[in-house]
C-alpha cells in the first residue's frame, strides 16, 4: 500500500501545505468546520483543482484522473446509488471496470460477509438504517481493492452505539487490509479509537501533527494554537454527543 505525500499544495483553502501519510497507517485529520478537512480529501482524490503535487508511494499522481487513482472514498452523506440494490452498489466499481460477472458476484459476497450485511443484498438504500447504509458504503469503497481509503466524517449521522461498533469494525478491517487511510472527523472519541497519527487543521493550516500517545498525553498543551479542548468545543458545536462517547 502506498504512502501519500502532499507537497506545496495550494488552492482556495490551502497555501503551501505539506504533509504525509505513512504506508498502511490510519491518519486522523481533526479540525473545526471550514478548516479544510474535506478539501484535503478531495485533493487526494483529485476531485478538485489544486496546485502542488500529490504523490502515492513517491509517484506523482496529479495528472491521473480521479477514476484511475484507485481510491476508496466514504463520503459524509455516503452518496449511495439509490437506484441500485445493495449488491449492485457494492459491485459498482467492479462492473464499471469491466470485471466478469462471476468475479463480481464472488467479491460482492465476500464484502457483504465481511461487513455482515449479507441479508441486505437485494435491498435498496432507502430501506436501510443509517448503520446499514454506512456498511454498504464502506463495502462499496473497498470493493475495487483501493490503494488509499478516504473517510469523510462517516459517523456523523449515527447514534452512539452503532457508531462505536462501526468504528471498531472499520478499524479492524483497515488494519487487516493494511490500507493507507485518511480519516476526517471532529469527534475526539472516533479519533482516539481509530487513529495511528493525528493532524490538526485550522483555517487551512496544519496546527499540530502527533502520534496517538503524544496527542492525547499532551492534551491542551499544543503550543501553536489548536488544543484538544478546541476539538471538544468543535464537537459540541456540531451536536456530537461528546459526553456519551468519551
Amino acid at each position, binding site marked *: 500500500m502506498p504512502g501519500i505525500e502532499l507537497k506545496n499544495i495550494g488552492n482556495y483553502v490551502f497555501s503551501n501545505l505539506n504533509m504525509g501519510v505513512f504506508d498502511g497507517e490510519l491518519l486522523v485529520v481533526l479540525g473545526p468546520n471550514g478548516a479544510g478537512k474535506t478539501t484535503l480529501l478531495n485533493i487526494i482524490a483529485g*476531485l478538485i483543482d489544486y496546485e502542488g503535487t500529490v504523490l502515492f508511494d513517491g509517484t506523482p499522481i496529479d495528472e491521473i484522473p480521479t477514476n484511475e487513482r484507485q481510491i476508496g472514498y466514504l463520503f459524509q452523506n455516503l452518496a449511495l*446509488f439509490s437506484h441500485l440494490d445493495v449488491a449492485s452498489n457494492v459491485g459498482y466499481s467492479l462492473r464499471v471496470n469491466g470485471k466478469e460477472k462471476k468475479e463480481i458476484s464472488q467479491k460482492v459476497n465476500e464484502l457483504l460477509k465481511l461487513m455482515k450485511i449479507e441479508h441486505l443484498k437485494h435491498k435498496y438504500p432507502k430501506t436501510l438504517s443509517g448503520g446499514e447504509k454506512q456498511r454498504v458504503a464502506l463495502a462499496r469503497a473497498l470493493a475495487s481493492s483501493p490503494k488509499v481509503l478516504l473517510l469523510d466524517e462517516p459517523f456523523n449521522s449515527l447514534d452512539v452505539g452503532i457508531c462505536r461498533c462501526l468504528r471498531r469494525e472499520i478499524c479492524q478491517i483497515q488494519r487487516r487490509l493494511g490500507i493507507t487511510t485518511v480519516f476526517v472527523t471532529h469527534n475526539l472519541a472516533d479519533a482516539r479509537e481509530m487513529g495511528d497519527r493525528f493532524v490538526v487543521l485550522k483555517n487551512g493550516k496544519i496546527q499540530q501533527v502527533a502520534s496517538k500517545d503524544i496527542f492525547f498525553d499532551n492534551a491542551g498543551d499544543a503550543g501553536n494554537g489548536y488544543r484538544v479542548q478546541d476539538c471538544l468545543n468543535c464537537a459540541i458545536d456540531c451536536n456530537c454527543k461528546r459526553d456519551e462517547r468519551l
Partner: protein
Amino acid sequence: MKGSKPRIFLTRDSCGSMKVKDVLVGILPIIVFVMIWEGIAQLNIFPTYIFPSFSAVIREFYRLVVGGVLLNSLLSSLFRVLAGFLLGSAAGIVMGIGMGCKEVVNKSLNPIFTLLYPIPALGWAPLLMIWVGINEMLPITLIFLCAFFPVLYNTITGIKGVDEDVIKAARTLGASDRKILTTVILPLAIPNIFTGLRLEAGMAWRVVIAAEMVAIPTGIGALMMRAESLLRVDIIIVCLMVLSVMCLLFERFFQYMEKKVTVGWG
C-alpha cells in the same frame, strides 16, 4: 396464537373491502352521470340530433366499430401520435442530456428554447402548413414540437438534480464520464424524464385531434369534423370518448412504466 389469527383475517377482509369500495367510489359517479344523461335524453326536451341518449351513442359506437370506420380513424391518429411523440421525446431526451451535462451547450441553446417553449404547439400550425405542407407530416411535426420541449426541460431538471456527491462517488469508484452518464446520471434522471413523457402523452392526442380537425382528412379529428358537418352529435361523442380513453391509456402507460422502473428505489 388465538389472538393473532383473527387479526390477520380482519386485515385481509378490510383490504378486500377497501378495494371493492374504491372501485365502487370510482365507478358510481360515472354510472350516475350516464343515468342522468339517459334520463334527460329520454324526456325528449332536446332534439335527438342535438342531444342523443347514451344508448344511442353506444349503438353508434358499435356501428362504427363493426364498420371499421372508427378503427381506421383511430389507427391513423395513433400512427401520427406515436411517430411525433417518439421522435419528439427522443430528441428532447438527447438534447436534454447534452444541455444537462454540458453547461456550454446549456448556455448556448437555453435562450433560444426559452423563447420557443411558451409558443403552444398549435400556434405553429399556420407556419408549418406553409413550410411542411398539408400532409401527414403536419400533425407529426406538431406533436414533435408538443413533446420535445417538456421532455427536454424535464430531462435537464432530472440530470441537474442528481446529487453531486453521487457523481463524485461514481468517479472515485473508477467510472469514466460515459459510464457515469449511463449508469448513474440517466437512471437517476428517469423519474423526471417519465414525468415529462407522461404529461405530454395525453397532450399529443389533443394536438393530433386539433391538427386533423384543421387540416388532415383522416383520423379521429377528421371524423369529428365530418360528423359535425352532418349534425351527428352521437359520432362526435363517440370520438370524444375514444379520445378520452386514449389520453388516459397513454398517461397511465407512462405512469405504470415509471413505477415499474423505479420500483424498490424507496
